[in-house]
Structures are given as C-alpha cells and as structure tokens.
C-alpha cells in the first residue's frame, strides 16, 4: 500500500517506518528533516497546512498521523487538532478509506478515569479534561469521528503512554527504575511501531465500526487498562513484556520446585 506518514520524524516515526518499510511504499513528511538513516521518499510538510496535506495525500491508500506537540499552546492546537482536521479533509478529498491517528491514552482516559477506575478500555467515551496535550489530541480525535461518521472513512486511533527502550526499559525522559512498579501503560518502542503496521494492515472485516480505538501496551498485571481488544482485533503481538518494571527481583524458592505446589 501507499502510506503517507505525517509527522514522521518524531520519536515514534522511525519505529513505524522500520516496521512497515519492507511491505509498503512510504512517503514520510515532517516539518523537520528526516533522520540520516532514512533512505525513502521525504517531503517537508507541516501537518497543519491543510492544502499541503491534501496535496501530499493524492494517490495514497492510507494516511498515518504521528505528529505531536505538547507544551506550546498555539502549536499544540495547530499540530494536535488542526493536523487531524487536515488529514480528514485530505482523506475526504481523495476518497482515502483508512487513516491512522495516534496520541496519548489520556486523550480518552482523563484524570478522573485514571485516578478512580480500573479495567479502562478504549471503547469508553473520551473524557480528556483540560490538560493541554490531552485536550488538543482529543479534539483531533473528535474531528476524526465526525468525518468518519459522515464520509465512511475508517479511523483507527492508537493510544500510547509510556514508551520504553527495549534494551534497558528506560524512557526518553527518565532513567530505568527496575522492580519499583511502573506506569501501567508502558510499551517498548519496537512494539509501538509494529502496532502502526498492524493498524495499517488489519482487515476491514475485523473492525466493528468505522471508528475504532486501541490501547497499545503489552500484557500487564495491574488491570488498570485493558489491551484485550488490541490483541484480538489487530492481532498485535508485542515482543517486549517489560517484566523487570513490575516484577520483584528474582527469588529462588527454598524447595527448588519453583513453587510448583
């Protein structure tokens, strides 16, 4: 398939490209230059440039929006909200049947859900609250929903939270902290990328509606959030289970029977 990636030079983009580059023709776009290791097609493009996104989307089968911007008020709206508007206008104009959008889990799981409840799942009504990042991403998701209902565009929303390096389980902003519990929504970068691939490739008849959201994290024992739908529908199988974050250090049972009885 021909896949347009918006905002592809951020942190998730390289992993999504790595997962898909051998199966799909990718046009990578971003406001910043690509990583030197990237050898494919590239176009400099700001995701809030509606006309530019429409032009770039011509002839594409799928649009994947990985763009994100958090701290700056104006830019957060431009990227997180207007970016999805641009993507949906482009999908409508070119009759593109599927778009993938990404964001943080709290664009759906707002503060009250997160602090009070368990077994949170991606089919809940979004309740993002007013935190800038969550709010602006939720607005973008809502724009996708409206376009999807009106124009029959398949929208798949992939929700992430805490991304980890597979080699040491550290994050981009924090060193690893083993055996001390964790954010119960943590995923290795490689698996974040393969989830994008799964969303691009999942057969339409596996999707219950034109607007489906998925939580992207491996099996975790907390039961704070639920990834069952992601495994069942997308067929996504994470390679990294991040156990060292939620297991205590290894103990040898006295009997040597490894607690068989």
């Amino acid at each position, binding site marked *: 398939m021909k896949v347009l990636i918006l905002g592809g030079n951020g942190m998730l983009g390289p992993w999504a490209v790595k997962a898909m580059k051998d199966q799909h023709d990718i046009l990578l776009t971003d406001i910043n230059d690509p990583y030197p290791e990237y050898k494919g097609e590239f176009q400099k493009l700001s995701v809030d440039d509606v006309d530019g996104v429409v032009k770039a989307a011509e002839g594409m089968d799928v649009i994947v929006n990985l763009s994100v911007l958090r701290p700056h008020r104006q830019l957060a709206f431009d990227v997180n909200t207007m970016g999805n508007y641009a993507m949906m206008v482009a999908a409508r104009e070119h009759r593109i049947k599927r778009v993938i959008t990404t964001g943080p889990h709290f664009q759906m799981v707002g503060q009250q859900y997160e602090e009070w409840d368990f077994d949170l799942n991606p089919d809940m009504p979004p309740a*993002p*609250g007013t935190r800038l990042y969550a709010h602006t991403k939720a607005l973008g998701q809502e724009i996708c929903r409206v376009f999807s209902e009106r124009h029959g565009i398949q929208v798949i929303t992939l929700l992430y939270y805490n991304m980890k390096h597979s080699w040491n389980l550290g994050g981009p902003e924090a060193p690893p902290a083993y055996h001390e519990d964790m954010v119960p929504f943590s995923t290795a970068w490689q698996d974040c990328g393969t989830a994008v691939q799964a969303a691009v490739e999942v057969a339409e008849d596996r999707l219950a509606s034109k607007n489906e959201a998925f939580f992207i994290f491996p099996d975790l024992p907390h039961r704070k959030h639920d990834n069952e739908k992601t495994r069942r529908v997308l067929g996504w199988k994470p390679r990294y289970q991040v156990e060292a974050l939620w297991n205590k250090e290894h103990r040898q049972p006295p009997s040597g029977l490894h607690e068989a009885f």
Partner: protein
Amino acid sequence: MNLLITSAASATAQLIANELSDTHTLRLTDLPENASGNIVANELGHESETDDLVAGIDAIVNIGYQGQTGSSPHLIDYHTRRTYNLLQAASDAGVKRYINISTLRLYQDHEENLVVTERWRSDPPAEDTELLAAHMAEYVCKEFARDRLIQVANLRLGWPFDSTAADDTATVSSGLIGAAIEEALISKQLIQWQDIHIQSPVAHQRFITNTAAKLLPGLAVRLSS
C-alpha cells in the same frame, strides 16, 4: 453583572447585546479585524491580553456559532484554540459562569417527527464547517466544566431568528434569546455542564423546551404561550 460578549461584531452578538444592555454592564470583544467602535480588539491568545480581557467579569456570553466568518481552518482554530484560551483565562480569573451560544442546527439532520431533547447526541455534519466548529466549541467548554473549572450553560438556539414563516418550525425570537440568557445567568438549578434547548413556541414546534422551562423558570410563560 459585568458581562463579556465575544464575537461582538456578529449579528448574533449584536442581538444579544441589545437585549442585555439595559440590565448589565457589557464589555464587547472581537478579533482585531472585526472590532470597531466600542468593541475591544482581542486575539484571544494565550498571553496576558486575554487575562486582562476577563478581569472583573462576572460571566461570559460566548458566541459559539456563526460569530466568525472566514476559512475552515480559521473557524476550527477560533472555536478550539481561542475558545480554550478564553476559558483558561476565565477559569484563572474566577469567572463563575460561561454561557455558550450554540445552535439546534446540530440536530438538523434528525427527522422532525423525533422528540429531540438534550438527551440526544448531536450530529454535526463534517462538510459544514460552521456547524463542526460549533460542535468543537461545545467540546472545549464541556471539558472545562468536567474539570470543574467553570460552570457552563450551553444554550442551543433554534433557527432562524425572528421568523414568522410557517415552515420555520425551529425559529426563536430575539426576546426569548435575551430572556434565556438572563435566566441562565442567575439560575441556581444548573449543573456544571448544562445543555438547554431554546426555541419559540410555534405551530408544529420542532424542539421541545421542557428543560428550559424547568431550569429557567422565568421562561416558562414565554415558552408555553
């Protein structure tokens, strides 16, 4: 009360200002390209100018539908980012109540024989950016109410205004709009986020207004006569 009315150059804001000017002290504001005369030019940006705009204000009447004109990206931007900025400044300043003026056109595709009330999910069309933007403004407001930062009354008004045509079964009069806002400013019965549908009592009335009659008691006679 000291009231701030946004998109003040628009026909809807002018109508509302006329209805409220005898009973309240009004501060009118609009984007610099629209502002003239007694309208304060303000970008509704995220810097201190929006804080200054809401200083000393008791309540805000925000025109959430057809207050602005321009390109689709402009309408989306105004009703999301700038609305967020206004609500953030208002919340920080302790403004108690925010009246969002929305539209019953968000249900225009529902058949007329359906008893559409505030309990029904609205259905904005993606191809009509004014309506999509109105829906997005409601979304922004609701999240501020959800976080209990400000109390929001979302008044969805009928259309067109002041029509006497028999087939305008969702019309609303200027007088009723003014009275509804007056009541929404003082009602003690509103929850943190409150949708209220407002239209005039006409033959074959399209939207029932029981919620308005219940929560805004001063309107009951107008809504039934």
